[in-house]
């Protein structure tokens, strides 16, 4: 501290004498690890806010135009004595309801959703996810065996429970993974891209594929008694 600083201490000079003067104290461990320069920066006001305003206006216009003619459904007064068939949850839970068709409630309704939430939360805390090494780059043989064993167990389990709507998207993603493994010599569009994907990418893509298929099936392809119906054929419920 230089002599010049004393003029800022006019009002509390006595305090300054007792306490060591330290304006800022930075250690490597406590400071935020901010990523370095990635291109030029702009002032948020106006560059960010004008874009947010445009997004807001477009959103409101789009919502109002749709809300003018797309009616929110309203059925008869709630009647505990009259169960509709099928009774369906909101669309974002229909994937779970589809799972309930195959697995006991404890598994489909409690264990799987809990595992999904825990899985999502811990993603950034696993080094393998942060590192993001391509799955098929190192230890190819070992990785392949682990993959095939996992796939075999999953396929047996899903086939045994006749969970076809889970099995199908699972095999689809597994096929893509094997395709990426088999085409390691090529680097054209889909193969070259898939080869660089890390394990976290594959797991998330598998999860999203299964979730979309289950939700779509639950929404459009399930009728009375949760039986398979085609959306274009008329059915009760």
């Amino acid at each position, binding site marked *: 501290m230089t002599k010049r600083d004393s003029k800022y201490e006019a009002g509390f000079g006595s305090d300054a004498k007792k306490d060591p003067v330290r304006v800022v104290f930075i250690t490597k461990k406590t400071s935020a690890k*901010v990523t370095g320069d990635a291109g030029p*920066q702009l*002032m948020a006001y106006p560059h*960010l806010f004008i874009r947010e305003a445009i997004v807001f206006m477009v959103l409101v216009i789009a919502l109002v135009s749709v809300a003018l003619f*797309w009616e929110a459904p309203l059925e008869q007064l709630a009647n505990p004595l009259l169960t509709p068939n099928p009774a369906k949850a909101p669309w*974002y839970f229909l994937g779970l309801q589809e799972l309930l068709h195959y697995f006991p409630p*404890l598994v489909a309704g409690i264990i799987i959703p809990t595992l999904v939430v825990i899985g999502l939360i811990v993603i*950034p805390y696993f080094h393998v996810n942060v590192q993001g090494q391509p799955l098929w780059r190192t230890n190819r043989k070992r990785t392949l065996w682990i993959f095939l064993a996992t796939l075999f167990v999953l396929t047996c389990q899903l086939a045994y429970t006749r969970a076809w709507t889970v099995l199908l998207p699972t095999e689809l993603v597994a096929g893509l993974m094997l395709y990426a493994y088999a085409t390691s010599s090529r680097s054209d569009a889909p193969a070259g891209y898939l080869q660089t994907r890390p394990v976290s990418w594959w797991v*998330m893509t598998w999860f999203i594929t299964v979730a979309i298929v289950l939700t779509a099936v639950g929404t459009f392809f399930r009728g009375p008694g949760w039986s398979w119906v085609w959306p274009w054929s008329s059915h009760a419920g």
Partner: protein
Amino acid sequence: MAATSTVGGVLERLRQTRAWKSIFRRGPALTNRTRSLAVFGNLFLHFLPVKVREKSLRVRASYYLGSISFLLFIILAVTGVLLMFYYHPAVPQAYRDMKDLQFVVSNGVFLRNLHRLAAQLMVLIVFWHMFHVFYRGGYKPPHEFNWVVGVVLLIVTLFLSYTGYLLPWDQLAFWAITVGTNILSAMPIIGKRVRFESLGGNVVGANALLRFYVLHCVVLPLIAIMLIAVHFWRVQKDGGLTVREEPEGDDEKGL
């Protein structure tokens, strides 16, 4: 100032008034200093960064999905409060209020349509936001904690949507909630208890409607507002959006 339009001139004079200056304090945002003050001198904007990377403003960097989620939340709060003026959380009055919205209240149908549409869209956009952040590697350090806050916000969004689902008290609402809460009782040991506490009884009835109403209109929005504030603030504190070092053109490369 000679070339300013009439509106511009009026605004300019407004800026010179004592009242305006007492509210905003800073001068017109013509220099980077006053533009910075516009952000961190404002309670509602100080959660946001003063400077942003040019790359992170591009549409493909975020598709503005986080912004859209937040804006949908605002739209839902406004339409939700308006709907509350016409709604009683009682059986069967709740359903009659729906009918009133349909046939008695001016623009009642439009109001309900807008609220419902925005709610469905918010669930969709929040999911999309999370997946997009994942595929861009936005969860990586130093963004780990904000990812966790985001996952909790997703769950809060789902609960907000789900509790709102019961409020019309029609067949659709009643049986959707019955199906959903039946799953709760599958929880080992505490399942029946949890279901009883969330419904205020053993079946979906008047108590359940009141509980869902309070959760939907008070508890969950408050939690969401607090978490959104943390979420925004941490985006800024963690160094802004994740952007690539290489040119932004091929988005998913280099994960």
